[in-house]
Each structure stands twice: as C-alpha cells, then as structure tokens.
C-alpha cells in the first residue's frame, strides 16, 4: 500500500498548480537533469577533453623547442576552445543543480512568504524558467561564441545566461520582500509542512548533515595541505615544460601537468559533490510526505540516494590513485543517485495524480 501522512493537511499544502508544487516538481526535475547531464559529461567528454589538453600541451612545448611561434599560437587557439568546452559544461551542470536546490528551498519557505497566491505562482514559474534557461545559455556559450553579437567579448548565449541569472535574483529579491512581510505581520501565508518523524526523514536529515560535515572537513584538508602546493607546482611544471631540451622531457612535464589538473579536479569535485548531496538529502527529507510509494520503496530510494551520495565523492577522490576503475564506480554511484531521485519524483507525481483525481491517499 502506498503511504502518505495526514492526507487532508498535506493536500492543503500541495494544491494543484500551487507555487509549492511547481517548485518541488521543477526543483527535483532540475536536480535530476543536472546530475544526468553531469554523468554523461563525465563519461563521454571529461576524459577525452583532458586527453586533448595534454596532447595540445605536448605539441605546444615541442613547437617552443623548435622555435615555431606560429604553431604555438595555433595550438593555443585550440587549447582555449578545449578549456571553454569543458568549463561551460561544468558550469551548466553546476548551475542547473544549484537552481534545482534553490527551487526546493523556496518550496520549503513558501509559508513564510507573505504574498498573493497568484504572485507566488508567477514567481515560482519564473524561477523554474530562469533555472532552466541559465544552464542552457551557459551550455551554448561554446557553440554560439560571438556570432552576431554587438559586444566585443560577450555573445548572445552569455546574454541569455546573464538575463536568466538576473531573473533568478529578481525572484529571490521579491521572495525576500514577502518574507519581510511575514516578519512584520507574523501571519503565515499558507499551512506549514506537517510534522513528520518518519524513518526516511530522520535518516535523510542526519545522513545529509553528516555528508555536509564530511565535505567541510575535506575542503579544510584540501585548503590546508594542497591548494598552495598545487598552485606552486603548476608554475614549476610550466617552466619545466618550456625549458625541456628533449621531446621526452617535455612529454613528462606535460604528463605531470595533466596529473596535477586531475588531482585538482577530483579534489574540487569530491568536495563540492559531497556537500551538494548532503544538502539534497536534507531538502528531500521535507518532501517525503509527498512521496506516494510503499514504505519499503521509500526506504529503498532513501538508502540508494545516501549510498550514491557517499560512493560518488569517495571514488572521485580515489580516481587519481585507482584510475578508471574508481571513475567507473563513481559514475555508478552517480547513476544510483539519479535513479533514486527519479524514483522519488515518480512517487511525488503519483501523489499529485492521486490528489488531483480526488483521492484521499
């Protein structure tokens, strides 16, 4: 039997096309889409892109050794394109998930936003639209470039991304104004979420808090022991790359550079992912009353989400030592997390279908 707690109260907090429902569904969809994009990017683009960067560096150092300035310029044009390709995809992934988190957050604080129901619905729709257009704009930057742009360095895709970012800021500012109204009047705009002390909520809350704490400690460890060392090592490697008398030495230096880039990338990815997943677990603890699944399935998705949340960052960090095996396990962890997220989304969609059809459970 599918379960939801306190049907009448929960129904009133999740009305058809309400701001909260838009934000919950849109938020989870954005997070899931952002993660799926990240997984596809990691499997099909990231490693190939890193290989391309290494090859370009070796070719550039060989051109330097040969005193061929024109070739250096040509190689750097392609290297810049590779870096932009990678950077915009990482940014699209990060911003799509970030916008999803913010949408879930706004869903939580809706009772404290004292604005009209219609205004809140419009704000929710604008937020989801902005959260969708921002990563699309970022993704397109590499492909659109400066085509037909009236500006020297900003293309139309950047303009789209910046406009969508501005839209998110405006929505957030109006929501903050609504919260200010609550502080003044102390009148809730709508019912708060019901008290729910279910197993899923407790596990997601405590698990999420621990993940965030782990992420903070990992970040502190990286900043203390590796950040400055990595910055110094980069300068040393570039000098070695260009002072190299032979092709073999420059190839070694280029390999060192690639290894350094990988060390930095995995440390930053592990740090940011473990914190993001902790935050996601905490946010999802709030929507558990809306997940219309049997208790066993709710527990399975909860455990799968937490398992994926720890497997991905741990094995991303181990990628430098264990290589592609760790990378594969990390991608599997990401996939587990995405499946769990889709499982919960299906549960919420089932709930809304049941609610709109006039069901009580």
């Amino acid at each position: 039997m599918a379960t939801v707690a306190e049907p009448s109260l929960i129904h009133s907090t999740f009305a058809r096309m309400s701001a909260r429902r838009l934000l919950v569904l849109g938020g989870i969809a954005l997070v899931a889409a952002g993660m799926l994009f990240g997984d596809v990017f990691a499997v099909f683009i990231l490693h190939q892109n890193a290989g391309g960067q290494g090859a370009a560096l070796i070719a550039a150092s060989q051109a330097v050794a040969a005193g061929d300035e024109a070739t250096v310029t040509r190689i750097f044009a392609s290297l810049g394109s590779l870096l932009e390709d990678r950077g915009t995809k990482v940014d699209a992934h990060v911003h799509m998930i970030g916008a999803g988190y913010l949408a879930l957050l706004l869903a939580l604080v809706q009772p404290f936003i004292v604005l009209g129901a219609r205004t809140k619905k419009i704000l929710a729709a604008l937020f989801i639209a902005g959260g969708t257009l921002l990563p699309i704009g970022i993704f397109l930057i590499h492909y659109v470039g400066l085509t037909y742009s009236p500006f020297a360095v900003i293309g139309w895709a950047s303009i789209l991304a910046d406009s969508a970012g501005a839209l998110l800021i405006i929505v957030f500012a109006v929501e903050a104004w609504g919260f200010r109204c609550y502080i003044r009047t102390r009148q809730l705009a709508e019912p708060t979420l019901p008290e729910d002390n279910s197993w899923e909520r407790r596990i997601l809350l405590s698990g999420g808090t621990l993940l965030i704490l782990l992420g903070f400690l990992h970040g502190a460890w990286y900043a203390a022991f590796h950040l400055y060392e990595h910055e110094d090592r980069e300068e040393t490697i570039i000098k070695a790359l260009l002072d190299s008398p032979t092709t073999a030495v420059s190839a070694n230096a280029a390999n060192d550079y690639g290894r350094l880039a990988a060390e930095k990338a995995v440390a930053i990815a592990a740090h940011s992912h473990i914190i993001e997943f902790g935050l996601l677990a905490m946010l999802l603890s709030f929507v558990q009353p809306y997940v219309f699944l049997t208790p066993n399935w709710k527990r399975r998705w909860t455990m799968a989400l937490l398992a994926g949340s720890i497997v991905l960052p741990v094995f991303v960090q181990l990628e430098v030592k264990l290589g592609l095996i760790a990378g594969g396990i990390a991608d599997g962890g990401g996939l587990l997390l995405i499946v769990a997220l889709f499982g919960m989304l299906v549960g919420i969609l089932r709930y809304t279908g049941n609610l709109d059809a006039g069901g009580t459970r």
Partner: protein
Amino acid sequence: MTGSQRLLIFGGMALAVFGMLYGLHYAVFVEHQILDRMGGSLEQSFELAARRNWEAFETALVTYVDTKYDYVRQVDAHSHWIGLAMLMLVLGVLFERVNFSESMRQAIALSLLVGSTVFPLSVILQTYHHGAMALQALAVASSGLVIVAMAAIAWGFARPRTTE
C-alpha cells in the same frame, strides 16, 4: 518561528542575494576579461619561450599564475557564499529540531552566519593581497567557525528530543 530560525533564514536569503549579485557583476564585468588575460598570458609565455625571450617569458608566466590565483578565489567565493546561504536556509526551516536551548541555537546560528559571510570575503580579499598571512588566518578561523557550528548542529540533531 524562533529567533535563531529568523537569523538563519533572513541571513541566508541576504547572503544568497549578495552572492548572486556578486556572481552577476563578476560574469558581466570581470570574468570575460580575466579569462582573456589568463589564457592570453599563458599563450604569450609559450610564444616568448619559442622566441627564447626568457625574461619576458618569466613576466608572462607570473601574470598567468597571479591571474589564475585571483580567478580561482573569485569563483570560489561566489559559489561558497551561495552554497552556505542555501545551507542556512535549509537549516533555518528545521532548526527547532536541533535539540539545544534557544540561546545556544542562537549562538550556533550566529556563528554560522558570521563564518559563512567572512570566509568567502577573506578569500576574495586575498586577491588584493596575495599571500597575506592575516587574511589566510581569517579564512581558516571563519571556515573553522562554520565547521564547529555544523558539528554542533549534527550533534543537536542526534541528541534525543526533549521537547515536541
């Protein structure tokens, strides 16, 4: 809503808006230029090495290293402000479940707000004073404040509930 919750939600919203405004300003007025300078100086260093102009090569390489130092910290500050703000907002909604007295919760919320504001700020300020020990110490202290606050919150969640 308790005082500690108000502090976290108001502080979190303000910090999120500030972080986003900083990001928008950065994306429109700074990022493209700094990326151009970073890529340009690295390319120039290679071209100068090809010309065997080692003195100018060193200068271009230093420009690249310095620009990258700034870029990494500016982007980090933007993402940390918004990330920490989101965490404050989530915690604000459920802070009553942190099983301490309200005065203790207020102290934890204030620590989190101060740490979350000052930590990225001290990182940004390092771009104006490379390697300044005082700013590095401020970053360590403020991030430590956030970690201690978060550990206290985890402990508060784990403690048996004495009130319903």
